[in-house]
């Protein structure tokens, strides 16, 4: 069983759990990439997942929307609870999970054969009329601060947009599905500073509607954007472990663990 206790933030402001893991481990074949992570995410918060390269943060993120199992010989042990229900239970439908947990990827990946507006309607939406889907699309594009820039060219190819715009389109596409959780895997890693700033601003407004878990390489970004920060580190055997979770301000000023302190002060990674 788990050797670490569930790390929970002791704070009065964050009491609304939405996503939680219990003793979660992720494997690629025999290689254990993420080890025994137990963490609770709060509903109305942006949680940043930080740590040096190879610490398993992206792997962990991909366990939440069941994308990890697409990799060759990928395996998962432990539980992930969405609103109290285990998403890995035997008859769970991965697609239903993925409709409730959306994802934005490191490099913008708009669907190249669909137009901009078709991208934002790509999630499916059975039972919705075309008008309803279009309404949702417009709302999503506005929420992603992209509407004004594309409203005249909704039918054109997304490949004409700049990198930052494409990423906002991907955000719009994800939130048009109206998920409960939005996972972001280093969303600004491939963008220039201005585009990065736009998206960081966006995240704050998005957090009012969605729970956000964002993996980031950039500590300053984590400090700027998130309410809660979780720090991961690979141990001597290469297994990624969750070291510390706390409110961002506390973690960055008074980390509880020595290793966290070393990382944020730049002593390694």
């Amino acid at each position, binding site marked *: 069983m788990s050797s670490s206790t569930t790390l929970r933030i002791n704070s009065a402001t964050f009491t609304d759990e939405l996503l939680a893991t219990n003793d979660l481990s992720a494997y690629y074949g025999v290689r254990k990439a993420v080890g025994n992570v137990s963490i609770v995410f709060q509903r109305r918060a942006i949680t940043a997942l930080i740590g040096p390269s190879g610490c398993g943060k992206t792997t962990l993120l991909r366990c939440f*929307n069941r994308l990890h199992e697409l990799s060759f010989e990928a395996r998962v042990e432990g539980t992930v609870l969405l609103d109290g229900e285990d998403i890995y239970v035997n008859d769970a439908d991965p697609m239903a999970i*993925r409709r409730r947990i959306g994802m934005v*990827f490191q490099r913008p990946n708009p669907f190249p054969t669909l137009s901009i507006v078709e991208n934002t309607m790509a999630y499916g939406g059975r039972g919705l009329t075309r008008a309803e889907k279009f309404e949702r699309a417009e709302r999503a594009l506005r929420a992603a601060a992209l509407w004004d820039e594309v409203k005249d060219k909704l039918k054109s190819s997304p490949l004409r947009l700049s990198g930052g715009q494409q990423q906002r389109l991907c955000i719009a596409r994800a939130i048009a599905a109206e998920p409960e959780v939005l996972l972001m895997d280093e969303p600004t890693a491939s963008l220039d500073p201005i585009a990065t700033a736009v998206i960081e601003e966006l995240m704050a407004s998005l957090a009012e509607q969605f729970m956000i878990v964002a993996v980031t390489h950039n500590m300053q970004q984590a400090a700027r954007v998130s309410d809660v920060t979780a720090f991961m580190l690979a141990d001597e055997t290469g297994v990624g472990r969750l070291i510390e979770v706390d409110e961002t301000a506390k973690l960055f000023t008074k980390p509880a663990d020595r290793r966290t302190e070393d990382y944020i002060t730049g002593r390694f990674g």
Partner: protein
Amino acid sequence: MRNQHLGRRRIYATLGTLLALCCAALGAAALLAILGYVVVQGIGVINWTFLTQLPTPVGVPGGGVGNGILGTLIIIGIATAMALPIGLLTGIYLALFGRGSIPEALRFLSDVLSGVPSIAIGLFAYAVLVAPLKHFSAFSASFAFMMLMLPLLVRTSEQAIRSVPQTVREGALALGMSNFRATWRIVLPTARPAIITALLLAIARVTGETAPLLFTAFGSQFWETNPNSPMAVLALQVFNYAISPYPNWQAQAWAGAFVLVFAVFALSLGARLALRRAMRGFEA
């Protein structure tokens, strides 16, 4: 000591380079010679009659390969209708289930098939569709053509699907799409230009195939649209006319060859152009 022989070595080098140039030129010249003769010998005979009329008996002037052209279109059409789904589905399987002994076995089988002489494939079609039914048919020719087209389609559709960036497919799945929807709506359309190119090239390949036709479609003197009966095919007509002793027919062989070459080249070049334009749109 090296400089002593430098002069001689330079001469050898120049001669050698010239030899290599001549060889490359020889290849290109051969192609131009073949094309040249086909055009020169064939173009005089081509006219609307030739392209649209039935063959006439020996000695009767005029006549054409209209039924052969029609037969070629019908047989290739049916072959494509059969080969495309099977090839595409197998390509999808290989792209989705990449590693493992079964996918490797399938790829091996595909390689084996691509090396089988077309006449042996004709024998297969004969054994399966002509002998049991006791008559030649255009459908058996389509069956043989399908076998010839499959390896190309399988290999290229696998490559085309694989070359769709992993992140596009994951983006689709992350939205909650089923594998089916993700493949059908997102991955396949992205791979479509490459698949169409492969299809055009496969069609170009079988347009000139003659050997399997000898005992599947067999040929005909009449207009025929029923796949269940023997049918005239242009390549077969060219063959029969070429080996005949009649100058009129031999002239028609050249003209038919002209049409074949024109069609094959148009398809090949068209395929490559289509691919290039699609690729450019991709990176816009």
